[in-house]
């Protein structure tokens, strides 16, 4: 803690001091983190958590933690969520050490299995209790994997949302859309991993690289803190002569922005542009205008632009944001402006107290669809606003169900009929 407060002013002025850790949880999560490691990321620590000793052994990641030795004896959970959860809870102290002292923690997990669905929510909770900003990238199972996997993934997603600042779900069904006809399931998993690493890299790049317009960690934190709405996350990339237009088109077609649960308009938005030395202010302005038109007004957008010399003739746009929901309380602002280190010790009582209520609301009141992606943001630091937050959850859950919001789930033989058929059938749509 003292270490943190010692450099708190530095992290606001200069992004170099931000400590970032990426934790892969379970088999899918670890694989995804393995891939990220292939790229040079100097200031980022990687870690893997799994119940399966054998899988963990083969991973090249430096920091590895096997959990639940006493429960599984080093074997996997066999798809049992409860075992995954118990395993994480049994090794809470070790996990706490792993997340201790970090400013930003990415949690990467594949939901639907045992370790990812069981342990990831526990790790999210520990990480946010330690005061870190927690952003989770989770993949959701294919429809053809069956109803049970879906249910498991959904419950885990609900749990994740109550602990993380942002949860970015990647439905495998949707990612398959981006592939060629001949794509195999393995390719689809690789695609999911690629999205995750693109997402993480974009966020990290805005923190670590300097450029035309700087964005820092405090700004990133500000986007999420105190917001109680949906997480918006999109990436667009353009290359070649007309890289600007291409990137904007790519962003418009980004599948993550077109799932039912995503907000199309955001109240606070962070836009980061990574380009080569040929990226001019006129380009940036062009992007801003287009984005403001699509997602909200310019006033609410925080812009960053990074110049990377290796990126000539290309540009990558990363949009990350949150929406206010009705019932948003301005009191939060007070908390938000308070130094982060002061709030860090607080969340623990509130989280433990609030979780049962959250779960009650999420599961009983409006069960989210498998493709609804939303995060419950800024819930954890508000012990004094507990009742308001329950109203909050209720409102936001309702809002987030896309066109078929406010309705009961449309389950037939374990499939949610409100989800487009072509997605569930894996029919690829070219645009």
């Amino acid at each position: 803690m003292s270490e943190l407060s010692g450099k708190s002013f530095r992290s606001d002025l200069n992004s170099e001091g931000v400590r970032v850790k990426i934790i892969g949880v379970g088999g899918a999560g670890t694989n995804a983190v393995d891939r990220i490691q292939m790229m040079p990321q100097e200031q980022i620590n990687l870690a893997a958590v799994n119940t399966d000793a054998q899988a963990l052994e083969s991973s090249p990641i430096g920091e590895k933690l096997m959990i639940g030795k006493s429960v599984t004896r080093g074997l996997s959970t066999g798809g049992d969520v409860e075992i995954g959860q118990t395993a994480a809870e049994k090794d809470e102290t070790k996990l706490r050490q792993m997340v201790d002292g970090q400013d930003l923690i990415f949690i990467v997990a594949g939901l639907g299995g045992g370790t990812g669905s069981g342990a990831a929510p526990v790790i999210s909770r520990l990480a946010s209790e330690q005061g870190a900003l927690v952003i989770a990238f989770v993949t959701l199972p294919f429809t053809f994997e069956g109803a049970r996997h879906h249910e498991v993934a959904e419950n885990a997603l609900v749990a994740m949302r109550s602990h993380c600042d942002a949860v970015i779900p990647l439905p495998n069904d949707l990612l398959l859309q981006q592939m060629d006809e001949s794509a195999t399931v393995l390719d689809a998993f690789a695609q999911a991993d690629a999205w995750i690493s693109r997402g993480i890299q974009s966020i990290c790049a805005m923190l670590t690289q300097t450029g035309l317009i700087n964005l820092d960690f405090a700004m990133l934190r500000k986007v999420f803190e105190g917001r109680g709405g949906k997480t918006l996350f999109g990436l667009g990339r353009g290359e070649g002569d007309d890289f600007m237009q291409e990137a904007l088109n790519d962003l418009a077609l980004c599948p993550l922005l077109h799932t039912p649960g995503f907000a199309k308009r955001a109240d606070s938005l962070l836009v980061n542009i990574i380009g080569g030395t040929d990226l001019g202010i006129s380009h940036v302005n062009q992007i801003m205008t287009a984005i403001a038109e699509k997602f909200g007004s310019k006033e609410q957008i925080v812009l960053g632009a990074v110049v990377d010399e290796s990126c000539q003739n290309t540009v990558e746009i990363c949009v990350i944001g949150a929406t206010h929901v009705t019932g948003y309380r301005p009191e939060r602002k007070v908390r938000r402006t308070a130094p982060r280190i002061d709030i860090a010790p607080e969340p623990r009582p509130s989280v433990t107290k609030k979780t049962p209520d959250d779960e009650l609301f999420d599961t009983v009141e409006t069960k989210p669809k498998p493709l609804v992606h939303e995060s419950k943001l800024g819930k954890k630091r508000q012990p004094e606003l507990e009742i308001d937050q329950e109203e909050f959850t209720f409102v936001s859950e309702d809002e987030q169900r896309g066109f078929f919001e406010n309705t009961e789930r449309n389950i037939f033989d374990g499939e949610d009929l409100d989800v487009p058929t072509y997605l569930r059938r894996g029919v690829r749509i070219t645009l």
Partner: protein
Amino acid sequence: MSQSRIIGAVDIGAASVTVLVGDIVNGRSLNIIGKQDATSEGVKKGEIVDFKAVSNATHAAIMGAEKSAGAQIDSIYLTQTGSHLEGFYNSAAVNVSSSDSRVSEADIARAMSEAKAKKLSDDRLYIHHIRSHFLLDNRVSADPLGMQGEKLEVGYWSIHGDERKVRDHIHVINGFGLNVEDIILSSIASGTVIATEEEKRAGVMVIDMGAGVTDWAIYQNGIVARTGVLPVGSDHITNDLALGLRVNRKYAKKLKTSFGKAVLEQDDRQEKVWMVGDQMIGDRRIPKQSLIQIVRERVEEIYDLVKRQAGELCHEKFLPAGVVLTGGGSHLDQIDLAGEKILGVPIRRGELPSWVHDNLQRHEYTSALGLLHFALSGQSLDDSALQRKQRGLLRRVTQLFVN
């Protein structure tokens, strides 16, 4: 002196609220004297999700319809749909009691009440009991009274729904200060007018594809044998297009109506269509193939699910008159062809009877027209012997809601 009764037929759908006003003269002839549509708000998948919005839209439509009719509505007939509706078939057999083995009225009453005796859980409400023909010693008989036999059997297709949801619908009407005379299942209301008596006798299936739900009913021997509700409708097609083509709902809907098709043909493979079509900035070209693929997948799934719901009755053998399509969703190009592939039964778009005026000859009005038909015939769906009792019950139920 002629006696006239002004009836309002109200169909609250996901896309629009339709109110037709009928003048029933001497209980014998029907004149449709008023109509009003209002864009529906707050209905999704056939169920009310925003009571206030639904009330506003419905009240506006009733008011407009009364104005266009120049008359005050006396009572309302209402359609009912939604995935909360369920049906089951229950039959009962009694031994003919008299010594000469001739069926008495008491025998009939006993058989009928036994077949309907199944109790529902507290929150469920019977909407219809639809009687199949009597079986006297396994011989089909429309009216067995006085016939000779040992065993009298009768069965009912009973439809029940969530009481609160049915009550919500009635409350919407009550909120306007009108009483609900009767509630009719949407599929049955549509079926009455869209299929002919001959077709119903032979065996026919009616599929009413609305914006929110797809209602279906199978007729055998002239009466309703099975009904079902699939909470998927043309709103889903629009939603699928919006998500799949990355366009907003407005353009998705426009694309659906202009280019939507349930069958992918060779010519469509290379073609591209404009999203907006007015050369504005941000317009883009969308491959027609993708558009049609999305629509086709959904339409085929709808048919497939209807087939699964209907079970063995959805077979050529039981449906010599095929399938009749109606409802707003049936406008989709080649939706009939797509269905034939899945159901294996000839499908055609229904035609409303010729007595329906030209400006009402639209598939969107089928259910509301069916309601007026019921109001005219004064017929309850339920068998005549118990009609009064049943209607009394329903009235009691509806009155209960008034207070």
